[in-house]
């Protein structure tokens, strides 16, 4: 909630200006009325010059004093402590102020005028005979003129104060008001209409009486001009009030349209309409807010369920990077909605055989996700029953045809990889034709036509066999990879994809290649909504391309790269992590100046784990995870020991470098970690105790600027 301490002063300033402007307007109006529309001698009820100025200043100060008494304390109370009762009270006073001022001004002009003129009549005419001569008419027209002026000022103030306090009421963010619906939306209209009508009648009546009684005769042109003026005045006042209603209604219509159209903030339907009156409009705003709250709750529930579904779906997907013998299988999948219909899976059948599936379920959202889950489960069970890839496809098709009932279909490609022979047998049920890339050669699309799963229970599928030499790649993908559209509606298309694949150099890790491809695809598409995208890259590696036991890489949501290592608990094993991290960070943060800091800090954490947690037991492996995001790199090193508390360690003398009395002057690993990382923490999960190091890109930028 935005509480502005200067609100009191702002309200007072605004109202002071409104009062001054209105009184000047009244003065000008009176001058115009007397000098131009009538004979000066005709009216003569209000003094001019200093007296008039004095009256106006007195009235202005009175209005300010009233505002300071009624409004300022309650608003100040709310500003100091914005509680709900105080807000209600402050808003109540602000809403009542136009009415109070209107009544007050009318009474302040009419009552003294009546008393004064009657007293004058009594004082100057001591017998009924004089009265009978009609002198009372003269006094009556003066009363009419003065009270008419008071009413005019009151009506103008009523309209202007309503308009002026409205932004402050909105600033107080009232989402409910007690007694909403107690008054009617017609009240301001009735007040404005009756007020302007009476102003017109009173002033014209005074004009006629004065003209007739004083014997000047009726000046028709002045009468017409006066009538037109008050008609215009009345219409302007009514127009002001009507425009306010129109503005409130427009806000509500806009909000309802947003709700109906499903446009809400990421936080979930938090925008509500301020309740700024106690009439039907206020009641409608409150009802709308309640409706929005309820829809928001429903939406959040749905979002929670979708998140759960997303998590389940993500767990069904294989790890991003799998090494199977001499092959490396990298997969990446992203749903454009919370859950999607793309699928990919990798199943290890025995020590030399791996099955790979990629598919796309027709449709989007939850129905597609349900079918996707069913297909993965079916694939996992059918592939273990044995058979060639086309036989497995046939069995899956037979089982799914009845279930899908013709309402949905699935394109599916299944590959069986023999890692010892280096062969791949692949069969497709209506899936996108994969690419084969011999080392250093252009990609070749492997054609194969058949119907997707779900059309024909008796469907048969062709199988083809490929031999992959070291460095060769086999790339499977879903239609989202080629049907991506830019703002002009142009497809990314096969040609661009083939061009991208042709640029893939030998020996470069698939994770890096796919990451680069996806970044370029994202920049091509801009903010356009896209189809789900999945890509699987199968590469037969040459012995020298990737060191044994290298990182297991996964591309997570938002382009985040997750790298995992398992390294022996020995001196020097941290070098493998550092070498690979070098390339990965250089790719993700190309201009970073902190790589050396990161490497040294991570090395120290690994050495600590190896020496203290794992006791340099080379048979044990240290799990190391690094998440590389666009703005943050987090490295988690499992220590294997009983653990310690980071806060306690930070409180100790980490920076005591005086080790002159020690034979082995070590023990500054944590000090280096503390000095080189932006933040570090310890924790524990199911894999054990870990040390976590954080490196921020923002910190790097600020350091660069500092330098």
């Amino acid at each position, binding site marked *: 909630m935005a509480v502005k301490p200067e609100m009191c002063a702002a309200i007072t300033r605004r109202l002071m200006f409104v009062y001054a402007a209105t009184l000047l307007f009244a003065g000008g109006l009176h001058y115009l009325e007397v000098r131009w529309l009538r004979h000066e001698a005709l009216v003569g009820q209000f003094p001019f010059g200093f007296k008039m100025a004095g009256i106006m200043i007195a009235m202005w100060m009175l209005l300010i004093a009233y505002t300071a008494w009624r409004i300022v304390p309650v608003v100040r109370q709310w500003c100091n402590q914005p509680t709900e009762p105080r807000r209600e009270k402050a808003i109540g006073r602000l809403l009542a102020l136009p009415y109070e001022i209107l009544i007050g001004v009318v009474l302040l002009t009419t009552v003294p005028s009546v008393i004064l003129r009657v007293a004058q009549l009594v004082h100057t005419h001591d017998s009924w005979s004089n009265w009978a001569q009609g002198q009372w008419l003269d006094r009556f027209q003066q009363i009419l003129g003065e009270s008419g002026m008071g009413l005019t000022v009151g009506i103008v103030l009523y309209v202007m104060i309503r308009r002026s306090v409205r932004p402050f009421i909105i600033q107080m963010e009232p989402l409910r008001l007690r007694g909403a619906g107690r008054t009617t939306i017609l009240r301001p209209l009735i007040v404005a209409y009756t007020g302007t009508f009476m102003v017109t009648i009173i002033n014209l009546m005074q004009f006629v009486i004065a003209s007739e009684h004083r014997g000047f005769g009726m000046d028709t042109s002045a009468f017409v001009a006066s009538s037109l003026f008050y008609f215009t005045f009345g219409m302007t006042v009514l127009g002001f009030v009507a425009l306010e209603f129109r503005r409130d209604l427009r806000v509500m219509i806009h909000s309802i349209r947003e709700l109906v159209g499903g446009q809400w903030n990421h936080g979930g339907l938090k925008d509500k309409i301020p309740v700024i009156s106690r009439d039907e409009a206020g009641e409608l705003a409150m009802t709308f807010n309640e409706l929005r709250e309820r829809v928001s709750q429903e939406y959040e529930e749905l979002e929670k369920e979708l998140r759960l579904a997303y998590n389940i779906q993500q767990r069904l997907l294989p790890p991003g990077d799998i090494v199977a013998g001499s092959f490396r299988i990298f997969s990446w999948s992203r749903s454009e909605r919370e859950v999607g219909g793309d699928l990919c899976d990798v199943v290890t059948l025995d020590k030399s055989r791996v099955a790979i599936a990629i598919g796309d379920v027709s449709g989007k959202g939850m129905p597609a996700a349900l079918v996707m889950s069913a297909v993965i489960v079916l694939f996992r069970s059918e592939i273990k029953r044995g058979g060639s890839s086309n036989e497995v496809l046939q069995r899956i098709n037979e089982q799914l045809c009845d279930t899908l009932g013709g309402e949905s279909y699935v394109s599916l490609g299944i590959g069986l990889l023999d890692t010892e022979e280096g062969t791949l047998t692949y069969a497709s049920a209506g899936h996108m034709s994969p690419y084969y890339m011999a080392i250093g050669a252009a990609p070749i699309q492997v054609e194969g036509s058949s119907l997707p799963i779900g059309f024909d229970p008796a469907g048969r599928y062709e199988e083809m066999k490929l031999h992959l030499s070291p460095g060769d790649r086999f790339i499977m993908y879903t239609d989202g990879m080629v049907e991506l559209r830019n703002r002009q509606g142009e497809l990314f298309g096969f040609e661009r994809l083939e061009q991208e694949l042709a640029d893939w150099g030998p020996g470069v890790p698939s994770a890096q290649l796919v990451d680069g491809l996806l970044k370029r695809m994202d920049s091509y598409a801009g903010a356009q909504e896209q189809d789900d995208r999945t890509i699987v890259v199968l590469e037969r590696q040459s012995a020298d391309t990737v060191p044994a036991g290298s990182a297991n890489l996964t591309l997570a949501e938002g382009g985040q790269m997750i790298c995992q290592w398992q390294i022996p608990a020995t001196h020097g094993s941290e070098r493998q992590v550092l070498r690979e991290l070098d390339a990965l960070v250089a790719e993700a943060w190309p201009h970073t100046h902190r790589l050396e800091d990161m490497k040294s800090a991570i090395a120290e954490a690994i050495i600590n784990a190896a020496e203290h947690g794992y006791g340099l037991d080379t048979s044990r492996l240290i799990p190391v995870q690094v998440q590389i995001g666009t703005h943050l790199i987090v490295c988690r090193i499992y220590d294997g020991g009983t653990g310690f508390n980071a806060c306690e360690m930070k409180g100790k003398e980490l920076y005591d470098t005086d080790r002159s009395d020690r034979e082995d002057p070590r023990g500054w690993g944590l000090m*280096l970690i503390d*000095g080189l990382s932006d933040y570090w923490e310890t924790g524990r999960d199911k894999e054990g105790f870990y040390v976590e190091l954080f490196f921020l890109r923002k910190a790097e930028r600020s350091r660069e600027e500092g330098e």
Partner: protein
Amino acid sequence: MEQPFTMQMRLTEEAMILDLHGELNKPAETVLLGSYSWDDGLQDGRSCLILNLQEVNYINSAGMAVLIRLARSGKKSQFHTFAYGVSVHYQKLFRMVGLTEYLMIYPDEQSVMERISALHEAEQEEN
């Protein structure tokens, strides 16, 4: 690829120069500290030990501990320890662990030699 630590020794009139190669870590301890009896002082009464770190591509805390032990021996045995070819990053690390209290860092061999000459001239003047 892992680069094991190796060391070559050069002698000048006033200093012993160690050209270090590879990764300066825990395994380097045996090579660096075990190859010479540093507590007995330098060969032929030389008073300066110069460490050439230009070809060292990796140093961790264990490696820095080895350097400290070496430089500490120098303090005991009355020889000065100098180093050159240290990257900006490792200079920062040396400062953090207090290694610069034992070791004087210079950009190259010539600067170290000039400093040693100046030191000797000052010593001769004192004598």
